[in-house]
């Protein structure tokens, strides 16, 4: 395809992806409130719309019309820049995530992915690592001790867990030998022993890696049980204590977008991406993989919420000890074992 | 190819003994130390005997290569050993006598402090001496040379708490330095001339050269310098002064080092390099003259000494003089012969003297002795044999060797012969004087008083647990026979000094000079090559050394008779003076007056040296070296350098302000300069 069509298609794909993502974010929030509510014997949002399905819209409107006040003594430029950085990083990483196979529309053979770069995974890692700045700067610039502590915690925690996160992925990379997410997913097609799907978590024996990735992902996204940057019992709201209205919403969106990204990466790397039974008419055949993919993401998010409803919060030293003294050695051990397996297999 | 002899074992054994005793001896009991020392020295002796037994089957000279040492281009020096008749004789003497003296020392030193130290040094000495003897090149020989010097220094100063002993050791060391300097220069000359120090190569390159009859040449220079070294080591004029003082050391040391072995190293070295000397008549003459003079000179001094060991020391010097005389007249084998016999009887004399001193509780002054004949019969009889041997009374060992030397000396010049004869007379005189003063007459000493004095040897045998023949039988005082560990070596040496000469009975006395023939190959082998072509190389050498002397037996017999007569005359005179009427000597001394004083004071040689060399040296070094060079040049340069650095850095240190950015600035400027330079170089 020539350059103009490429640009047009890319633009369409981007808008589409962004729309889907933001909606997903909104409804993840709704889902969370609902599920946690039921877990805690509450109803959760019910007022707005059936089952409170319109609650996210209401929230959005509320955020939009709330007074956006910036407290005095904040370091203005960074105070404003921080949430933008956060949400930008969160949304950027969706660009390289494939949601399904190639589809052909009107002779155009296009991948269900904004762009397919052969170092997609690295790009995701890089962008998420840049995401730290949003949190850290927010904490520092808003010139309040709670925020500062939150920011410090966030930056330290994210740096620490990024290491074990990356190491947990290396096993998969060694198995497939590519950074391209699409290749990774394609490598997981098919089944072995007639029935078991050939996913990395099963076939590659990467369940340990998956476990490590899970833990690190919670830490990376500042979710319970690792949500110390915003531990409301100690730090009011952590790094976004001083934020309000749309800026706060941006952090909010960033957090949930990150959750979704992490879930997507997990399902791509460990859970076989969009692979699943495909049948029916061509359109269905084209859309079923997307459905399987979304299903996995949904399960993953549900796990998030479930954990949040179940587990208490760690203490900070426990968090660090867990990260450095348990996850990191475990990841390295898994790395060594996987390397041996690969070496022996070849 | 000759069988592998493992010569290296011989010197290494004493070294091991020294190492063991030296490093562990402090913890050992005296018995252990004794065991170690005797074991290793004895083993060395046994090894030498083994070598001697297999000697006939060897192709002489037998060179044993151990390891490369210095490999500088063409100049090569190796650790390699050289065995021929000469070194074999030396080996036998060194290890044999050394072993006996080890045994003796056990008894003698038993009560001394630093017992292990003593035997460590003794074994060390053995090692170096054997290295010296076995060396196959001058450099290795020099190592042994220096090593024995060191050992003798250590042993002379064995009682280093005693000031006289310490200074005596230093004196010996320094005087030897002078000689070694000559030796070194000689070595340098050899290297420069022949590019090698191995005996074989040097001699091979020397043999073709003709004798430097006219004037002095290189060989003469080398010979003279070697002689300087020899004079230093074996106490010849003018470097003999250290030997009498060396008597400060324990008596076994005096016997081993300063009578039997080390001091003869010079003789060995000279006769080892006889090839050079034979081609340097002037050097030979010098050797002969020095030897002769030394013999006479030392003998005259010996007459007047009253310290028993001093007498023996001077007699040693004079006997060494004999040996050099022999070498000087080209009778090297005779010199070595005398060296061997002298090792026997002089070692015996010293040991016996030690036994005497031991008996009278450390008294060394003969005037405090007398009448010991009945009290210490073993010592007496052995000492008697030794005395007769040195006095040249047949058939004792000394007679043959000395007679040989005199006969050869006569064939060169009657002057040598006459002085030698007179010296022989003096020798027998002062020896019998010693003999009479020590053993005859009535006891003049006060051994009872000594019995519980500080340096108390009276109790040795009892504490040593060694049963003394008459030790406790004595009614009175500390006078007693020595323990058997000391007596046995005496007996053995006595036997040797009685029979030792019979291997060298000259033809005139119906014997066939086995010793001469045995050493023949060493000293004759290459004469021919050198001498044949250019006529008269010391003609007397030719005809004497070759075949039966033309002068015939009759003349030789006459001369023999004369020398024997001289010995008897000395005996008679001593008998007259010191036995019949002992007051006579004082009158004679009084009569001689100043001359006698001069002799008593050893011709004031020490004082002379002190005024000539020592004092100027000390003054000069204090003035020039110490104040002049050391303080004003070295120290000053250091101090000024320090001050200069101090001031310079004082001015510069402001550059180092400690401000990081300033440093960065300097770095940036420097980097810019370097870049500019490189670009300039590149674009040029």
């Amino acid at each position: 395809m020539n350059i103009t069509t490429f640009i047009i298609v890319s633009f369409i794909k981007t808008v589409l992806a962004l729309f889907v993502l933001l909606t997903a974010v909104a409804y993840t929030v709704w889902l969370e409130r609902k599920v946690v509510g039921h877990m805690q014997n509450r109803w959760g949002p019910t007022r707005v719309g059936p089952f409170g399905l319109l609650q996210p819209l209401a929230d959005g409107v509320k955020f939009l019309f709330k007074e956006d006040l910036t407290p005095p003594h904040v370091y203005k430029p960074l105070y404003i820049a921080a949430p933008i950085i956060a949400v930008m990083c969160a949304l950027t990483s969706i660009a390289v995530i494939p949601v399904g196979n190639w589809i052909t529309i009107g002779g155009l053979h296009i991948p269900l992915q904004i762009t397919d770069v052969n170092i997609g995974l690295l790009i995701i890692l890089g962008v998420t690592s840049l995401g730290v700045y949003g949190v850290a700067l927010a904490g520092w610039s808003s010139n309040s001790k709670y925020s500062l502590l939150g920011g410090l915690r966030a930056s330290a925690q994210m740096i620490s867990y990024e290491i074990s996160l990356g190491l947990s992925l290396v096993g998969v990379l060694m198995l497939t030998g590519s950074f391209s997410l699409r290749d990774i997913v394609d490598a997981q097609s098919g089944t072995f022993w007639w029935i078991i799907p050939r996913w990395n978590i099963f076939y590659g024996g990467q369940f340990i890696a998956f476990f490590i990735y899970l833990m690190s992902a919670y830490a990376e996204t500042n979710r319970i049980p690792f949500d110390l940057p915003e531990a409301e019992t100690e730090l009011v709201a952590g790094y976004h204590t001083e934020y309000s209205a749309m800026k706060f919403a941006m952090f909010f969106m960033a957090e949930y977008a990150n959750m979704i990204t992490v879930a997507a990466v997990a399902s791509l790397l460990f859970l076989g991406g969009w692979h699943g039974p495909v049948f029916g008419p061509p359109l269905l055949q084209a859309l079923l993989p997307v459905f399987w993919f979304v299903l996995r993401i949904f399960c993953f998010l549900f796990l998030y919420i479930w954990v949040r409803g179940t587990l208490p919060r760690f203490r900070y030293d426990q968090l660090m000890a867990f990260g450095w003294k348990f996850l990191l050695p475990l990841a390295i051990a898994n790395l060594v074992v996987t390397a041996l397996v690969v070496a022996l297999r070849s | 190819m000759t069988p592998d002899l493992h010569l290296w074992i011989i010197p290494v054994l004493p070294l091991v003994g020294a190492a063991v005793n030296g490093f562990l001896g402090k913890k050992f009991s005296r018995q252990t130390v004794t065991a170690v020392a005797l074991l290793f020295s004895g083993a060395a002796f046994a090894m030498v005997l083994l070598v001697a037994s297999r000697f006939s089957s060897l192709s002489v000279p037998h060179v044993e290569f151990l390891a490369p040492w210095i490999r500088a281009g063409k100049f090569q020096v190796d650790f390699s050993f050289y065995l021929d008749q000469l070194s074999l004789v030396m080996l036998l003497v060194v290890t044999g006598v050394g072993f006996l003296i080890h045994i003796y020392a056990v008894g003698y030193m038993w009560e001394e402090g630093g017992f292990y130290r003593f035997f460590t040094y003794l074994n060390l000495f053995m090692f170096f001496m054997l290295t010296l003897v076995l060396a196959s090149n001058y450099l290795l020989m020099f190592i042994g040379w220096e090593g024995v010097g060191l050992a003798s220094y250590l042993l002379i100063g064995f009682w280093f708490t005693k000031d006289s002993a310490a200074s005596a050791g230093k004196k010996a060391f320094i005087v030897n330095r002078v000689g070694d300097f000559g030796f070194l220069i000689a070595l340098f000359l050899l290297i420069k001339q022949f590019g090698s120090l191995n005996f074989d190569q040097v001699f091979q390159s020397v043999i073709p050269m003709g004798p430097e009859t006219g004037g002095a040449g290189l060989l003469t220079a080398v010979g003279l310098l070697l002689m300087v070294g020899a004079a230093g080591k074996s106490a010849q004029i003018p470097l003999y002064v250290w030997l009498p003082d060396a008597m400060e050391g324990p008596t076994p040391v005096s016997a081993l080092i300063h009578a039997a072995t080390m001091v003869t190293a010079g003789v060995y070295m000279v006769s080892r390099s006889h090839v050079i000397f034979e081609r340097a008549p002037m050097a030979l003459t010098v050797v002969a003259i020095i030897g002769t003079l030394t013999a006479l000179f030392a003998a005259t001094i010996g007459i007047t000494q009253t310290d028993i060991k001093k007498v023996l020391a001077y007699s040693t010097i004079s006997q060494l003089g004999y040996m050099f005389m022999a070498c000087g007249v080209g009778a090297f084998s005779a010199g070595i012969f005398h060296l061997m016999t002298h090792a026997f009887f002089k070692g015996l004399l010293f040991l016996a003297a030690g036994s005497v001193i031991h008996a009278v509780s450390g008294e060394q002054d003969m005037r405090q002795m007398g009448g010991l004949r009945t009290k210490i019969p073993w010592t007496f009889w052995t000492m008697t044999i030794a005395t007769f041997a040195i006095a040249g009374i047949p058939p004792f060992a000394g007679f043959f060797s000395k007679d040989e030397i005199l006969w050869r000396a006569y064939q060169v010049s009657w002057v040598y012969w006459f002085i030698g004869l007179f010296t022989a007379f003096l020798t027998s005189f002062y020896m019998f004087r010693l003999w009479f003063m020590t053993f005859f007459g009535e006891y003049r000493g006060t051994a009872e008083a000594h019995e519980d004095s500080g340096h108390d040897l009276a109790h040795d045998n009892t504490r040593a647990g060694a049963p003394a023949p008459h030790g406790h039988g004595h009614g009175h005082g500390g006078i007693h026979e020595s323990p058997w560990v000391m007596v046995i070596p005496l007996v053995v040496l006595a036997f040797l000094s009685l029979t030792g000469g019979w291997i060298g009975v000259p033809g005139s006395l119906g014997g066939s000079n086995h010793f001469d023939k045995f050493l023949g190959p060493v000293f004759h082998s290459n004469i021919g090559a050198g001498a044949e072509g250019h006529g008269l190389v010391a003609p007397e050498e030719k005809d004497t050394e070759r075949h039966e002397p033309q002068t015939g037996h009759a003349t030789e017999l006459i001369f023999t008779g004369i020398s024997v007569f001289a010995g008897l005359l000395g005996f008679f005179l001593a008998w007259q003076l010191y036995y019949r009427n002992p007051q006579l000597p004082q009158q004679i001394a009084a009569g001689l007056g100043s001359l006698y004083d001069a002799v008593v004071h050893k011709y004031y040689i020490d004082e002379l040296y002190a005024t000539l060399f020592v004092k100027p040296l000390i003054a000069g070094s204090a003035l020039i070296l110490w104040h002049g060079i050391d303080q004003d040049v070295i120290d000053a340069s250091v101090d000024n350098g320090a001050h200069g650095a101090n001031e310079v850095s004082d001015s510069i240190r402001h550059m180092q302000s400690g401000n990081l950015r300033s440093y960065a600035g300097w770095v940036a400027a420097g980097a810019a300069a370097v870049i500019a330079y490189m670009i300039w170089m590149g674009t040029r």
Partner: protein
Amino acid sequence: MVPISYYLILSGILFACGVTGFLIKRNIISIFMSIELMLNGVNLSFVAFAAQWHALSGQIFVFFVMVVAAAEAAVGLAIIIAVYRTRETLNIDQVDLLKL
């Protein structure tokens, strides 16, 4: 198509900026960051040369430089913290004594 010299000149500019920063900055951390800037400039030149000579080892060097930079950052920042503890200042001009 971009001339290779452009990349080199860019890297040169970055390096010069780094040195200048080292010279004019007072804050230890800023100076440290200027050092990182220099390293980045060098890295760019490495990659550019790698592209010029078609030798990947140039890019390998970049990794080593990054590792060294990481180690340096860790130690250096630790040192800075220690210095701040003892001197209570980050101004390089006031940290010019070896002993307190």
